[in-house]
């Protein structure tokens, strides 16, 4: 479960790991845009090779990326099948009621498949090479202009940072409460749905009560340490824009150029 919440960060010293999280966030978003520039096999091939190169640069085993794609397999399949059987145009090979198999349909479904896989690979690359905290810092920095329209960017960022820090603590606590209630004769995972839902009460109530207690303690501790809220704080965790980040941007621009040239 911790994987879902904490992301799938894998420690490493690759060039992708070292990139600034802001650059990675911007480029991951930008990548989604340029995927839609692709409209023939040449452009897909170029983007495919590029994505593969990025994956190789991260020095992370391919199996982690495949794991990233796996939960989405159903979604991908449905999208591809819809494209395959509902697209008209080109040669019609087969037809049955509203379903038809056309040459356009086949090509489109292949393209859609490639598109989704490329996007998933690129966003997996972001999460395996960037810690959740770095992502939060990156977002804070990118959202900074929103302060002008009174969005409490700093508070949100601190909240996310504290939430991330307490995830392992709360997981640990949940496990302890589960153990304590099992020792009192609760058999989790048995009985009908209603019974199982009822078993959650002895876990959720203590968890809730303890979390509130923690939150109160934490609030007092933060106040004692001089926290007054608002944007008037300096930041210890600094983000550094390096040459590699600029190079990354340039490479993506060049890639865009390449795609424009190859586009049919």
């Amino acid at each position, binding site marked *: 479960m911790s994987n879902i919440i904490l992301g799938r960060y894998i420690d490493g010293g690759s060039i992708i790991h070292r990139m600034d999280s802001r650059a990675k966030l911007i480029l991951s978003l930008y990548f989604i845009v340029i995927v839609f520039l692709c409209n023939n096999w040449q452009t897909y091939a170029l983007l495919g090779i590029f994505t593969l190169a990025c994956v190789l640069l991260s020095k992370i085993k391919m199996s982690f990326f495949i794991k990233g794609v796996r939960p989405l397999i159903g979604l991908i399949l449905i999208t591809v099948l819809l494209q395959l059987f509902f697209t008209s145009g080109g040669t019609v090979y087969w037809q049955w009621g509203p379903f038809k198999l056309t040459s356009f349909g086949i090509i489109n479904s292949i393209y859609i498949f490639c598109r989704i896989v490329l996007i998933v690979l690129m966003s997996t690359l972001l999460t395996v090479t960037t810690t959740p*905290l770095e992502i939060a810092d990156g977002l804070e920095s990118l959202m900074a202009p929103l302060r002008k329209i009174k969005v409490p960017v700093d508070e949100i960022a601190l909240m996310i940072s504290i939430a991330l*820090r307490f995830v392992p603590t709360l997981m640990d606590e949940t496990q302890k409460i589960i153990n304590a209630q099992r020792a009192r004769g609760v058999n989790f995972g048995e009985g009908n749905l209603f019974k199982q839902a009822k078993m959650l009460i002895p876990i959720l109530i203590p968890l809730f009560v303890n979390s509130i207690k923690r939150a109160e*303690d934490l609030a*007092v501790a933060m*106040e*004692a340490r*001089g926290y*007054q809220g608002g944007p*008037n704080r*300096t930041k210890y965790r600094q983000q550094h824009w390096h040459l590699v980040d600029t190079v990354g941007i340039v490479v993506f621009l060049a890639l865009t150029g390449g795609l424009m040239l190859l586009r049919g």
Partner: protein
Amino acid sequence: MPLIQIQDLTYEYDDFKLGPLNLELDKDQWISIIGRNGSGKSTLARLIDGLIEAQSGTITVNGLEVNEQNVWQIRSQIGVVFQNPDNQFVGANVEDDVAFGLENRQISHEEMVKRVNESLEAVGMAEFAKHEPSKLSGGQKQRVAIAGILAIRPQIIILDEATSMLDPEGRRDLIQLIRHLKDRFHFTVIAITHDIDETVFSDQVIVLDQGKIRMQGCPVEVYHNRDQLMDLGLDLPFVEKLKLKLQENGLAGLTDDETLDEKEMVAKLWQLNSNM
């Protein structure tokens, strides 16, 4: 002028009442506050730091009255280590947590890096700078909390049962560390604790019971009053317990001895033994 001056202080909450309290605490001292759970020890600490507001009376810290205008200035001079090591760890990792108080005071980044390193060095946690809290023991987290306080260079450190969730070895290490830091940086320590053996080297001991000061003085004075201590539901320091037991076993010679320190007591007993 005393460092902290408390006059006619009262605080009420539900059926708990603290005070009226009058107290003067001097600079550079180690002041221990002991008493049963619910005697008002932690409440007193929170009142001094302005974390809760008294119903009546005044507290002045370093000449500044604790009130809404002064509270942030006062908190810059006071650091508090709380009981639960987990619930005061704000940062994503060790260095980040030490920096938290500095960020709040808008210290420049350059200065922050310097102070974070120095503070972590001082508490012996420098090699753990990048560690996440879930990878640390309770004792290590309390060290980080102390580093976070050292970084703001306070005049007063309040230990609010800071050792109560640690094992005996962890307790001893933490107290030793703070004594060592006190010698080096010359701050005042207000230590709230249940562990009476942690208090025998204090300059002053204050015993609270049901919101009132029952005993006050140097450890020798306070702990010599064995009956009253036990009536208040408190333990005796180990050496005091030993003297009492020696007396019960028919050796009265040490009953009125003033030693509270174990090593000194060992020396005294050895001397007695050799004279036999």
